């Protein structure tokens, strides 16, 4: 179903578009970093794949967390986040975005 023209051009939809663009950008950054950590081709890494299926272990996960904290200037270790927040690169990107907005 196509949304009416006035909804598409509303400020709310514009905000959502910007938000999606930001999350995609964060995902891209995370994909490139995890590719470096795991010595893999970024093209092979899908943001919706669970991290354990990508081959991320304790050490590579900590490396990713350190990268996120340095790159986005946010504190993850003491933030009380759960497994759901870190399940995939997609969920991590949303978490980062939420934390940066708040």
């Amino acid at each position, binding site marked *: 179903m196509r949304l009416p023209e006035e909804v598409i051009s509303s400020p709310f939809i514009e905000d959502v578009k910007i938000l999606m663009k930001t999350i995609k950008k964060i995902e891209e950054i995370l994909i490139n970093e995890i590719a470096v950590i795991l*010595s893999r081709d970024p093209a092979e890494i899908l943001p919706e794949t669970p991290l354990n299926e990508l*081959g991320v272990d*304790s*050490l590579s*996960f*900590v490396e990713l967390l350190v990268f996120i904290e340095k790159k986005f200037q946010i504190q993850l*270790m003491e933030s009380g986040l*759960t497994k759901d927040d870190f399940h995939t690169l997609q969920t991590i990107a949303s978490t980062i975005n939420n934390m940066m907005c708040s």
Partner: protein
Amino acid sequence: MRKLNKIEKVLSLLELSKKFRNRRYLTGMDWIVHGLDQMTKQATGAGNMSQIVLELAGHLDENRLKNSLEQLIHKYPVVSGHAARAFNLAPYWKIPSKKKIVRIPFNFYIINAGAKKSEITRLLEQSVNTPFNSEKEHLAFYLIKTEKKSFLSMTFDHRLLDGRGAEAFLGLLQDEWNSNFNLVADISIAEPSHLSHWLQKFKAGQNVNRLLLRIAENAPPLVLPLAPALKYPDFKFSLISFSKDESDEIIKKANKKAGYLMLMPFLLAVSVLSMHRIFSARGITGADYVVSIGIDMRSPEMVEKQIFFNNLSFFMLKISAYKSDDLTFILNSIKSQIYDQVRSGMLKDFIEAAMLLRITPLALLSRLISLPLKGSISSFGFSYLGETAFKSNKFMGQEVINLTHMPRVPVPPGIGIFFQKFRGKFNAVLSYKQELLSDDEANLILLTLKSVL
């Protein structure tokens, strides 16, 4: 002196390049492993060796295996190399010509039907405790046949292979056997001399030194007392193999107690708790345990390309002994130290700083290594290798039931707990120099591991 003509010059350059092709510079970590080998030889008469055991669901043909080994070492003469020093003082591994390859020892045992598991374990202990015959011998194979199964053990010198490298080496043997030794494997042995970027190395050394000073605040750490050097190799091993269901439960428990993907810190925390019970029962009390954790720096994809030598770094963690009966405390302490050491780039700093130690002769290096912790290196060793790098389901036609490691832990400390996974199933091995633990104490450690995991 007669001037060399052009042809002679080219020939001498070719000769020189041939000479350099037969050497592989050792990294700092390789040299540290040589130092640990020297220390362990002084304390036990045998070096820093380990063993991989393949449990096979059938009988392996020993002649076929012998022939295959013969063909394999002729393709990879690096296995018969030895350490030497170059004119620029950097240590290197001298790779012999094919004519000078050393034969790999091969021993074969048949065990009667109805033999106990402990009998197999004793034979395996005997094989890993047998010193190599020369400085150019770094591998030995033992085949034990029982009524229906075979146990193939490969004893290896850590100067040639690390744990995952050894798994990949057995995988290479299987792949070569499959291809009738016509495999064109992309294995890199070359290593530069690393005689540049000195400032970077000194800065790394400074960071490592700062870490060691923090860890050595209450040095020496708690250790189990070693007997005066007995000149015989005497390591014992206790193994637990977990089923697939039990292993899945361990992962769930680790996620719940330690956090998502925090399996290694969880396994380490449970190991600290298990060891603490022994120290407490013996009345060995004090400020800290120090644990050295070997970390494989290769990604799983790189293991097949970087089979030989040591691709390791270390975490050095200090855990307060006063609170080591509290799993949550141990976990938090481990996690925050790992986080800090990753953030400060300590794994890479250890690798860089170790390059500076290559100038040190081995006899001095073994003393230097134990200097910061006043004669110790750690309270015990630990590592978690993850899923095995041996990918095949079969070895020379026989199904592989399990793959386990039996490492002789460098002395001191001469004791360690090691985990790895084979097809999703965990194996844990407690390795210790005989006089460090009684059989009851070793059983208590295993019981604690099993009950908490």
